[in-house]
Every structure is written in structure tokens, then in C-alpha cells.
């Protein structure tokens, strides 16, 4: 990504970093608000996806990580689908989450990071997701141990949940995770 006519006082390194990781050029965004109009989670966000794109363009990193917007993306890809400039906005949301995790940025609501961590650990050792384990461990870490407790009984009664995990290729899975770690 080459930026012509750089203005003084603007930090371009953040947008360049995002471009390097995701391949997306935020300077293509001309603020048409199509992404915000279609976003199902917008009413829960501190600022809109359109604003997010502007903040990245201006390098306002603090503003982005102090607010909740990036953590409310449901990965529905409506913004990506409708963007007239063909920017993969949902992928930028993911990239920001990865940056936050990598740089140990302090965030207010850690529940999504905890959820992802539990999920990744389970598939690393079991190969497939084990839902009762996922729910129990996540609820415990999230200080809400009884969340969905009522539903659990119904699921067991209706034989809709697997009580015991299936362990698939544990060693091969661990090798995959180890190899991925080596590449970093």
C-alpha cells in the first residue's frame, strides 16, 4: 500500500500495519455508511463500523481499543458483502482482535478472548469441540457459572448434547498447533 500526499500530524503506521496483516486498504473507504446501515449489531456498538474505518485512516488506535465496537462484530459479513469499494471490513474487525491479543492491549470486556481461548484449547486436545466442556469452563472463567443451566437439563433430556468428548487425533492436532506456533 502506497500513500501519496501524507498529511502532517497523522499516524499512518496503524493503517499500514493492518494492511500488512490483512491485505485490506482502509484508505479506499469514502465513508458511504453502507456497512453501518446493514450491521445487525450496530445498535450495541459505541461507534459505527464507518467511524471505525475513519479512525483507522487517522491512526486513532487508542480510540478504537478503548471502546467496545470491535468486540461486537458477529462475523455475519454483511459489511464485506455490501462495501462498494470491496473492502473486507469483517476481516479488518478480525485483524483488530488479533492485534489486541498479540499486543496485550488492555480491554474492558475480556469475555470474547476467554471464549476463544477455551475453544482453541479444547480443539487442540480433543480435535473436535466438546460443548459441555466449553460451556462449563467458559462460564466459570466468566464468573457466571449458572448461565444456560436451565437449558442444559433440557438438552440432556432431549438427547441433544454429547455427554462425553470424542478424542480425535490428539497428537496430530497438537502437532498442527505446534507447527503453527513455530511459524510465528
Amino acid at each position: 500500500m502506497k500513500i501519496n500526499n501524507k498529511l502532517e500530524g497523522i499516524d499512518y503506521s496503524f493503517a499500514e500495519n493492518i494492511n500488512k496483516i490483512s491485505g485490506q486498504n482502509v484508505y479506499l473507504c469514502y465513508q458511504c455508511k453502507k456497512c453501518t446501515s446493514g450491521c445487525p449489531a450496530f445498535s450495541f456498538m459505541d461507534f459505527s463500523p464507518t467511524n471505525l474505518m475513519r479512525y483507522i485512516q487517522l491512526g486513532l488506535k487508542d480510540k478504537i481499543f478503548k471502546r467496545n465496537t470491535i468486540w461486537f462484530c458477529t462475523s455475519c459479513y454483511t459489511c464485506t458483502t455490501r462495501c462498494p469499494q470491496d473492502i473486507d471490513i469483517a476481516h479488518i474487525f478480525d485483524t483488530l482482535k488479533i492485534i489486541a491479543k498479540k499486543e496485550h492491549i488492555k480491554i474492558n470486556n475480556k469475555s470474547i478472548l476467554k471464549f476463544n481461548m477455551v475453544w482453541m484449547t479444547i480443539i487442540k486436545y480433543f480435535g473436535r469441540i466438546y460443548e459441555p466442556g466449553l460451556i462449563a469452563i467458559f462460564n466459570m472463567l466468566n464468573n457466571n457459572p449458572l448461565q444456560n443451566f436451565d437449558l442444559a437439563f433440557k438438552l440432556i433430556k432431549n438427547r441433544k448434547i454429547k455427554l462425553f468428548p470424542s478424542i480425535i487425533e490428539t497428537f496430530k492436532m497438537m502437532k498442527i498447533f505446534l507447527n503453527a506456533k513455530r511459524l510465528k
Partner: protein
Amino acid sequence: MKVSYYPGCSLHSTGIEYNISTQKICKTLGIDLIEIENWICCGSSPTHQSDEILSIALPIKNIANSKKNNNINEICVPCASCYSRLKFAQEKIKDIEIQNKVEYIINSKDYHNVTVFHLLDVIIKKIGLDKIKTKVKKLLSKFKVASYYGCLLTRPPKITEKVKYENPDDMESILGVLGVENIDWNMKTYCCGASFALIQPDVMLELTKRILEDAVSAGANAISVACPLCHFNLDSRQKKINKKYNTNFNIPIFYFSQLMGLSFGISPNRLGVFRHITKVKEYLFNKELL
């Protein structure tokens, strides 16, 4: 016709009815589903939000497994989320740098020339509506169904290669053959917030409520889905939504494969409809299917 079958984690637990009914209708339609031996999790949303290279390596590993064990170049995926991850991985691995990394991670190079289909695509493109017509034994004439596709079955169209991604009609065309009255409604591809079910339950309840509300006000008396996560959300959260928003939802949610099975004359019990959280017994009784 033989295809590799990648059920995904949900179809072995909370979406077990989808697995059962898919196997049943495929048997009737002459599709031979061969489950990929030792398939692993596709990674789903938590992986693409935390580790991009793993989110490509895990689906590719499954595709490589399918080639190695089944030697079939077509994979049928019933779960919309898994389908999306597999398609995404195939697109992203076209980049040489990513390709080298993934091949190192999974220690395999044989994953090329494989086509990933969603179950709906297999039925429409490979079987066709004419063949379905010959298998119909009962017309589901009193069913007024809103077909719900969710996010990942059609979006983003660059990945899914769907032409009608804002207003898809694959499910409607199948259900139309079964004699179902298709309802025209707004929220066919709206997000139900399934990925937030545990993390931000308030968001999930609000989004799911919007979908149920629109389907009911459009005149639907059932909703048909093609994704285990959408089904779980729409089916099991109705009681909670009624409590929170003071509403009165009690609408049965079926997998499209269950509706096909009912129409093919397979007994409701064998399609797993009684495992749903929102009860369907009375509904089926009123429609003279019990």
C-alpha cells in the same frame, strides 16, 4: 452418487437432528454420504478471530483427509458455518505464502481440485427438483414456512459463489415441491447472533427476537433452516425471549431436511423432530402428520 460427508461438531451434539434427517433423506434420494474418517473441527469463528493461519490450516486438513481416505473430489457440508470456513480456506490458500505455511503445518500437499458443496447445493444441483418430486408421498399443504438462510450460507458471495445472496430462494424452491406455502419475509439472511450466544447473550436475544418477530408477522407458522447454529438459537431461546420482551413466540423451527423427510413419508420420530426444545407435536398433529 458418492460424496464425502463432513458433518462438523454441531451435528454430533446440539444439531443431531440435522445429521439424522440428512442421512435419511440422502438415502431416499440416492446420495451416498461417506463420512470423512477422523475429521476435525473446522475452527469456526474463534479461530478466524484469533489465529488466521490456523483458520486456514484446519479446514484444509479436513479436505486433505477427505482426499486421502475417501478419494472423492466432492465434499458435502450441511453446517453453514463449516461450509463457510472450508470455502474461505480454499480461497485464501491460493496465496503462495499462505500455501507454503499451511503445507508445513498440516504436512500434506494433496488437497487440490476438491469442490465443497453445502447440502442445499448438492440437492438442487446434483439431484434436482424433478427427482425430489418423484419421492414426495405427502404434500405438506398446511405448512406456512419462512425459509431462513442466516449469514454464512450466502455471504460473502465472493467465497460462496452465490448469485442471489441478498434474497436467496434455493430452500423455497425445494419446499415448494413438497407443497409448502412459502412466506415472503425480510430477514432471510439477517444474523441471529449465534456466535454471541455465550459471550453477549443480550445481543443474541435481540437479534433472534427480530427474526422471530418478522417471520410471525409475515404470517409464517414454522421456520425452515439449513444451519445447526441458527436452529439452536431460534429453537431454544424462544422461552427466554418471551420472558425478556414479554412476547408470545411458540413457533416450530425445522431443518429443511426434516420437512423433506416428512414429505417423503419418513416417520417424524426418525427425523428427530421430537428432540427440539420448542415442541412440535401439537403442530404436526394439527397438520395430520401424526
